[in-house]
């Protein structure tokens, strides 16, 4: 009698205890069966992805799809993978790159790409993703999410493409232009990559292990656009060999140097530097006329000269049969602002130098200039260094307005060619008094012809110990 009651009581207690333990169960139960799967299981459970699943295994990527980050997969279905190149399947490294070109980190749902996005794949390449398409492939099923990511299926393969830099390196025999660019490779020292052997007792600076810290770089990538980058897109023009040589040779007079090799190198550089753009033009019809290169040169590309277009992972390559950039386009006027001198004859005259902000009463705009007076040094000058000056004739214009003293004065403008170690021209600049007519206009002083490509110091020199005053110098090249 009592035993029954006790047993009933124990059963009741047990029920209460077990129900008590379930409080979290309901709360943390997975809302969807899918959430108990990982991506590998999700791929495996889809019969239309059996080939993809097989290749994932062959490429040794099972562990990646099971790992605890978040991924998005755009898996080509079996129909799409029928046409896969057997060579890709045979080569594990290639296959891995191929598979990784369909997988990205992070979750990307179609709702996130109402504005199409470029998404970094695990292959290191970027692919385009929009609500309907993944790169060139159309989405078949979308947005299935499991514990560690999202799975979309697509109806075509998206194999990894080579990038422009790979293209340049692969076609050096075909195109002299690419051979030239490859020739601009150099090794640079990067202290963050170098191994420090010790810290010098004498200087306190690190002593790096010889041979470490060298990183391969390329002048073209450094100074024009980095064709290795996958996160940007470019358009790159390749001129066929004959045209490339003609175009380069046409610049020879302007890069006079001590040797033809140097001159050749300079002319070629000055051709290729205007052949890359940071806008991916998918078709030649998209070219603006003219194209303006990074160094400001306008390059008229004739659509009719386009021989071939190649799609790259980071842009497009256009093969041109002919590109003729007018020589006058190649050289831009130079403006030297007086208030930004590179240096002076001597450095102890700072008290004589004024950097001024003045009002131009005719235009009611402000301008800055430099005034050096009371320096008491004969032929004192300030100079303005211009590197890579071509060997070309310049028309020299100057602007300076004397508003600090009543007496008019002269100064001289000379060009000092550092390669030659000689002056290549001298002009006299009569600085007008501010009351004179056209005192705030620039004045044509004459021409100076540079005879050797290189660095020119443009000097504004005092007549004896007179003042120096300059708003700007404008140098217009005359090819």
């Amino acid at each position: 009698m009592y035993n029954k009651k006790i047993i009933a009581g124990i059963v009741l207690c047990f029920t209460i205890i077990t129900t008590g333990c379930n409080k979290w169960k309901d709360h943390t139960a997975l809302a969807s069966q899918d959430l108990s799967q990982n991506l590998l299981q999700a791929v495996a459970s889809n019969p239309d992805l059996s080939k993809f699943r097989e290749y994932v295994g062959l490429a040794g990527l099972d562990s990646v799809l099971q790992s605890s980050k978040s991924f998005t997969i755009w898996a080509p279905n079996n129909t799409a993978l029928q046409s896969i190149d057997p060579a890709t399947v045979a080569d594990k490294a290639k296959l891995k790159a191929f598979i990784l070109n369909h997988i990205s980190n992070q979750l990307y749902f179609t709702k996130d790409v109402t504005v199409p996005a470029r998404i970094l794949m695990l292959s290191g390449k970027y692919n385009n993703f929009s609500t309907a398409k993944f790169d060139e492939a159309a989405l078949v099923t979308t947005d299935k999410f499991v514990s560690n990511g999202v799975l979309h299926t697509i109806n075509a393969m998206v194999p990894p493409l080579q990038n422009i830099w790979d293209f340049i390196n692969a076609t050096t025999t075909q195109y002299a232009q690419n051979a030239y660019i490859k020739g601009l490779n150099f090794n640079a020292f990067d202290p963050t990559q170098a191994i420090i052997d010790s810290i010098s007792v004498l200087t306190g600076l690190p002593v790096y292990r010889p041979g470490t810290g060298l990183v391969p770089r390329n002048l073209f990538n450094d100074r024009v656009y980095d064709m290795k980058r996958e996160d940007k897109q470019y358009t790159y023009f390749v001129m066929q060999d004959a045209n490339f040589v003609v175009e380069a040779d046409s610049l020879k007079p302007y890069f006079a140097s001590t040797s033809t090799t140097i001159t050749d190198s300079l002319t070629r550089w000055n051709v290729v530097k205007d052949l890359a753009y940071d806008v991916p033009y998918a078709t030649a019809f998209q070219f603006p006329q003219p194209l303006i290169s990074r160094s400001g040169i306008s390059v008229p590309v004739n659509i009719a000269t386009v021989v071939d277009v190649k799609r790259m992972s980071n842009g497009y390559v256009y093969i041109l049969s002919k590109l003729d950039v007018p020589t006058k386009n190649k050289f831009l006027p130079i403006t030297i602002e007086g208030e930004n001198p590179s240096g002076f004859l001597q450095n102890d005259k700072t008290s004589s130098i004024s950097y001024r902000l003045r009002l131009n009463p005719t235009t009611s705009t402000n301008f800055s200039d430099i005034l050096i007076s009371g320096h008491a040094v004969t032929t004192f000058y300030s100079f303005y260094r211009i590197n890579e000056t071509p060997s070309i004739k310049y028309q020299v214009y100057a602007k300076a307005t004397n508003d600090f003293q009543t007496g008019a004065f002269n100064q001289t403008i000379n060009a000092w060619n550092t390669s030659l170690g000689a002056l290549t021209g001298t002009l006299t600049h009569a600085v007008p008094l501010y009351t004179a007519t056209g005192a705030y206009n620039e004045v044509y002083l004459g021409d100076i012809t540079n005879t050797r490509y290189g660095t020119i110091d443009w000097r504004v020199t005092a007549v004896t110990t007179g003042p120096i005053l300059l708003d700007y110098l404008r140098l217009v090249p005359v090819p």
Partner: protein
Amino acid sequence: MHSFKKILTLTVALTACFYGYAQKKGTAAAGNKFQVGGTVINAATGKPVRGIRLSYKEFAASITDSSGHFTIKVPNAEALLLVTGDGYQSKEVPVQGQDKLSIVLYEDGFSSASDDVDLVQGRTTRTLAPYAVTGIQANDGWNRYNETPDSYLQGKAAGLNVIRRSGTQNIGAALFLRGINSLYATNQPLIIVDGIIFNNSMVGGSIISNNYSNPLSSIDVRDIDNITVLKDATSLYGSKGGNGAIVITTIRAKELGTKIDFAVSGGYNAVPKNLPVLQSGDYRTYLSEILKTKGLSDADIQKQPYMNDDPSVAGYYAYHNETNWQDLVMKQAYTKNVYLKVTGGDNIAKYAISLGFLKNDGLTKNTDLSRYNMRFNGDLNLSRRMTATTNLSFTFSEQNLRDQGSASKTNPIFLSLVKAPFLRTNDVSATGVESPIIADRDTLNVSNPVAITDLGQGLSKAYRFAGSMGFKYEITRDLDFNTTIGVIYNKVRESFFIPRKGVVPDSLNNAIAYSRLGSQVTSLFSLYNDTRLTYSKVFHRLHSFTARAGARYLKDKTEQDYGLGYNSAIDELVSVGNGVNGLRKIGGEIGEAKWVSTYFNADYSYADKYFISANLSSDASSRFGKNVTSGFNVNSTVFSVLPSVSAAWLISGEKAMAGSKIDLLKLRASYGLSGNDDIGNYTAQQTYVSQNLLGMQGLVRAGIANDQLQWEQVKKLNVGVDLAVLHERLQFSLDGFSSKTDKLIVYEPAPTASGFDYVVTNSGALKNSGVEFTASARVINKKNFNWDAGFNIAHYVNTITKLPTSRILTSFGGATYITQVNGAANEFYGHQANGVYVSDAVAAAEGLSIRRADGTLAAFKGGDIRFTDFNGDKIIDDNDRTVLGNPNPDLFGSFFNKFSYKRFSLNTVFTFSYGNEVYNYTRAQLEGMSNAYNQTTAVLNRWKNNGEVTNMPKASWGDPMGNSRFSSRWIEDGSYLRLRVVTFSYDVPIKSNFFKYATVYATGNNLFTVTKYKGYDPEFSATESIFGQGVDNTLEPQFRSVQVGFKIGL
């Protein structure tokens, strides 16, 4: 007020009448005329009992013979006989005009209406008290030594809601007797220990986050003889009795023979079940998602050290682990305990001495408690007329603690929940070899919980001395003079150290605090005196009359001094002096309060059937303002006037009840005023505080003085009935009460022109009404097998009736409380969440937005929480908040079962709380999905894409849409049913003369809890204020524990 004066006048007049009547007839007093005979039988066996003493006051006595027979002559046919005997219960038996009585006695310890209760007036039995009182015979204290007296009271008295503050040892409990009686003043009942008012609040507050140095922990539960919970008519305590009173009486020698009790026990504390947080894999997936919403690019995310999966890359081993931080921070623990009690004496002096020592390891790693306590209570017969009592106790406890509660950088339990599981406790080399050095804080800016438990320190040392002496002088046979002087000195020394290694720094005004150091000393000195004259006489052997007039004096002096330092040079320098000089902060507070109370009390009973009591007290206090309008004024000192009257009718004493099955039927009613003087020591006065302005030090006014500030006034009405039937096998007690607090202290908004935010005024009012029911039964009553069962249950409704403003909003731990007229005090107030928007389209169709800080609107999208737009303006803002729940329970109480079979006994106590809502702050952090904190596994269901039906919103860094704001998402049902205590014991048969008895026992605490609450435990109380109740801010949870021990008597 006016009605009270009337009642008072009436009472006094009535008393005077009786007195006069008694005087007139006194001379004609007759002897004992009425003879009663009968038998006393044992309830379990049905056999007669010999040696049972029967008595009627000082007039008559008798003893049963071997056949259980007795005869006794009593003055009248309506006398109430007192029946006592060794090993049997004490019982009051009404004669009811019968000349033959059959008295049934249960064993000693059987709980009945004849149990002792301790009132201000002295010890009596519940039958004779016209009040709503619960007397607790603390005879089970010896196997519940891990409790403090306040937590011990849980489930013991109907209407006393005991909420343990946390699972930390010694931390005690918040006590609420009959609802919430005050908003800003204390709600804790007055505690009286051995006649001395016991200041039961911690001075200042702990510098170790969310800890509480509980003064009551200085009393060993085994030193307690009786606890009486006094619920109504506490006007004798004047302006301190508003929350009821709990009267604790400690051990005294009951017999002259020397009696030694010795107990040793040991125990085991289990670790609570871990909360289900994400494991490394799922956590990393979550992390990569939340970092994306932070705006990090994929490349940035992949650059994070934990995203690398190549073991050859440095850092791989530091970030590829599966660490269960909860297991590392919460440890199973062991407890041990020794206790000795000696009582005895002779007819000149009796003594009771106890000594105790315990050492308990705490739940949090490296926390523990050691306590040493001693008590000496003496009763001295100094002369024929003069007796004296002494009570001396000293307790020292030393406790290692760690931060808990809302300390997100230093609470080890909180950190163990949110810490990334892929990290490990210690540094690890590039090849995976673990170093003994504890790992620093991580790149996600979360402290290492093990750094807090292992390198951090937190120490609290508490000393408490309580001593009192009482003298009683019998001036005449009927007139006594009594005086008691008591002194309490309490000192708490605390220090803590938070290391720089492994812990996220705090920001100060002008510096970053890496390591944090602190030390504090608080002290309390309390001097108390109670002096009174008692006149007591029985007239005509029918009219009992007692009157008392007395005065009390209480002086409390408190002092708190603390120093906080920062950035000691190394983690080995842990004391506050090692902090950077410029950053050191020193502060403190001194408080002093004086209280004088005069009181008058008259008790009258007629034929032990009709009882009436009138009480009046009048207090003056240094806390009251000078121009208080109520009360009366003597020499510009304000005195309160707090009267009460209570009456009872013992129907079962009437002749008409003779022969009925009803053993006890008693009606009670009381009405009275009492007060609450916890209004701040200096709030009524103009005070100044120091202020630093651009390096200049000066004094500014601390607020607006309110010279009319007075005690909160509580009117209490109680109606009750006590019933016992079938030879007391079934006992019931039912009480209904209504209490109204007016002159409620409120922080009333002050006019802007005053320059202050608020002024403290007596401008609110609230009321509580409720019922309490207690029932107990002797279900099985056999010679060898007894089963007692019973329960108590209470219900109350708290309503605010008056406020100077339309509502009061307060906040704690991210929760907002509303207190408004016609609502209960401190209800949760926030947004109503209705699931998650399935898709962007559904959200757009509803068209709700939030307003950003810059004023623009941000629309809700798929995966956001669907909040209710109550005002229909399509913008979810503060105006759309609603009452989400009430932390007050609808029902609370306990039920017990007690089985005894031969020498075995099994005792179970269940406690429950039903219908209280709680705010799960911890879960709000663990499911908020707005930062790098680890989350519960429920977030695996987080919304990710359109069309997904789930109740978990999307993860979004910083939570721009406020999905994890304080809302109904985090409000949970805090109801629970808990097997609070289960004790199994066995009395070993002893044949030796040396041992009197020996008992072995096992006790389990909190063995199981049934609750829907999704946290460690649904019972917690984070603040002393009511504006913090029901918030689970990750306190140390309650845990299961088992103790095994033995007790021997010599």
